[in-house]
């Protein structure tokens, strides 16, 4: 029996993610843990995350999960979600600048703050940060995780920073806010989603199902 390891480093809510993975995992086991050895034995790994990047990286390092993820990412399918996707890159501008796992070249940058109101009472469109809600994702290149997921599907986002991969080939999907940004990234056996597939209804479940059935090849 194959095992999907969900990395639990004490940040955020794994409830809905675990529930969604269970729903699509077939006969695979879902294993939620911070035990580096046990996680390294898993067939696939999921790195979730919400909150601030500094606290996230501090916890990953304290629990020695950072090296475990880097080691695992050499061969196993690895999925980062939200902050768990952002830390796949080299560094983030959040919290004054934090070095991350460096599995995908590039950095994580903030959406520009909305400009202050220029003309009171003018009913202009003002973009808010965090980018919160449903947005459409353009599939910028083919990948096994997109199988059966319609292009421009809606996914649920909530974040103030976004990944900016150095190599355009590492961007898997883009969303607009208002400028295009990397909503999904990929490199070899690694994928990352800025949005929350576990909060994105059927299409999100389909994406998770594709990941749990992916052998890390054909990307």
């Amino acid at each position, binding site marked *: 029996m194959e095992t999907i390891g969900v990395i639990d480093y004490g*940040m*955020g*809510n794994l*409830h*809905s993610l675990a*529930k*969604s993975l269970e729903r699509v995992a077939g006969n695979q086991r879902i294993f939620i843990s911070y035990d580096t050895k046990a996680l390294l034995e898993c067939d696939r790994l999921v790195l979730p995350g*919400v*909150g*601030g990047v500094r606290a996230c990286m501090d916890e990953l390092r304290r629990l020695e999960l950072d090296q475990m993820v880097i080691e695992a990412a050499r061969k196993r399918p690895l999925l980062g979600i939200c*902050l768990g996707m952002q830390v796949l890159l080299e560094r983030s501008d959040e919290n004054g600048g934090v070095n991350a796992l460096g599995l995908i070249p590039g950095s994580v940058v903030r959406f520009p*703050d*909305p400009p202050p*109101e220029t003309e*009171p009472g003018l*009913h202009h469109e*003002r*973009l*808010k*940060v*965090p*980018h*919160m*809600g*449903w*947005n*459409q994702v353009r599939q910028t290149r083919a990948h096994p995780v997109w199988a059966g997921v319609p292009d421009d599907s*809606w996914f*649920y*986002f*909530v*974040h*103030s920073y976004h990944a900016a991969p150095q190599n355009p080939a590492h961007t898997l999907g883009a969303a*607009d*806010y*208002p400028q295009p940004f990397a909503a999904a990234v990929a490199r070899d056996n690694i994928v990352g989603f800025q949005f*929350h597939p*576990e*909060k*994105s*209804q*059927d299409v*999100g*479940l389909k994406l998770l199902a594709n990941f749990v059935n992916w052998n890390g090849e054909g990307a």
Partner: protein
Amino acid sequence: MLAKRVIPCLDIDAGRVVKGVKFEQLRDAGDPVEVARRYDQQGADELVFLDITASSDERPTLFKTVEAVAHEIYIPLTVGGGVRTSADVRALLSAGADKVAINTAAVLNPDFVHEAGQRFGVQCIVVAIDAKRVKPKTRKKDGNETPQWQVFTHGGRKSTGLDAIEWAKTMVEKGAGELLVTSMDRDGTKAGYDVELLRAISDAVPVPVVASGGVGTLEHLYQGFSEGGADAVLAASIFHNGTYTVAQAKQYLAERDVRVRR
């Protein structure tokens, strides 16, 4: 681009969905899990649960309800009502809530919002502001009054003396990731949102604003976006009573060029 959100709100009392007028005269509107599932299927973008149970003895009932609903639906769930400590926030997130709404506790201790945002991430901290119009202190030269609102707590019973717009700014500085703005004058009246209140707050803060209080028609939802400048609209009775489905609401909005997820 990002879609505007339509959010059914479920007031929860002792494990049941209820609806009242101006925070009083509660009546039963169904089983939370059934209602939540129905809205999910209709295309609701999120759900909000407000626990209005007076007694803290009923807290475990709320956790069970949240757990049961989170198990059934795959859209974000916000839970508010009686959130006073970091332990409350953690318990709700563990039960399956994606965001928590803080109201009275933020007024009693604004730093609680900061603390919760630091600990759990600002993306899951919603500050709920219950605002009521008050007689303006200043009068414009042309004789027109600039509207003013005050923040109320305890389900709208207690005035705080805080100006709602200033309070909204303070809460965002403290770390609120979203504001849920309810007009106490309009809540339950079906007279439409207080769009002036929404516009004033939406223009004053960089974070998303959810409009609440007073929806009676689909036109009111539209006004929340077009006049109020809200990022999301919340409604209860028009959906609970079966007057409209969420899908009908979105159809109506889409016909008026509001970008919605369908």
